[in-house]
């Protein structure tokens, strides 16, 4: 199996929101046959952790110029636009 893609999942406290988001992404990407691993962090920790990530998914605003693709979304909490976001994640990871 190829090396898993690393998704950095950021929220305010790295406790509640990112747990939901990371869990949902792992499940959905597994269904799509993609090998992913998620790491949760606080939004403030993203700049120091971004280097190791293939993709950053965040529920709160992040600084710009992180050098990695960033998806800012509440879809995994509210359900609004979830399919579109999943498609977007899949496309980025397949690159």
């Amino acid at each position, binding site marked *: 199996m190829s090396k898993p893609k690393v998704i950095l999942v950021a929220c*305010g406290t790295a*406790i*509640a929101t*990112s747990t939901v988001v990371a*869990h949902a992404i792992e499940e959905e990407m597994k269904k799509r046959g993609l090998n992913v691993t998620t790491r949760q962090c606080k939004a403030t920790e993203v700049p120091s952790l971004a280097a190791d990530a293939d993709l950053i998914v965040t529920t709160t605003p992040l600084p710009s110029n992180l050098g990695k693709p960033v998806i800012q979304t*509440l879809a995994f909490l*509210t*359900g*609004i636009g979830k399919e579109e976001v999943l498609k977007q994640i899949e496309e980025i990871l397949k690159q």
Partner: protein
Amino acid sequence: MTSNSLNLLNLLVPEAVALNLKAASAEEVIRLLAAALLQGGYVRETFAQAALEREARLPTGLQLAGDINAAIPHTDIEHVIRPAVGLATLVEPVVFKNMIDPSQSIPVRLVFLLALEQPKSQVEMLQQVATVLQNPQVVQDLIQAQSLEAVHRALAAVITAQS
């Protein structure tokens, strides 16, 4: 799913369920629910203030698919003794700021106050909160609930469906 797991129904503290609450602000709602959790020994004295400060910096308002919007205030784990959830439904909305865009105000009528310890152990409950928020019918049922039993019925619908 096991019956003794830390699911939303088990973690919801009856004394911290405020239905048809009349509150003037998000702060009032958070303080009221936090006081009930403090009384029950679930959180430390610092919890309410920490949740309010976190809300000011990193708001938790969520615009949902239906007419009712929600907020999920919470804070760092050091303010929590054991995991618990408080719930408020509001007669008139109070203003929370939008999680994804803190410059935006959202009128909120459903509030889940989350007292969290270890994230991994509460993933099930958190997933259930998200499942509730994604289901406009359940959100509506919660808003209309007039008793703790009605709240349990509304939540059980989601939790059973998920397991």
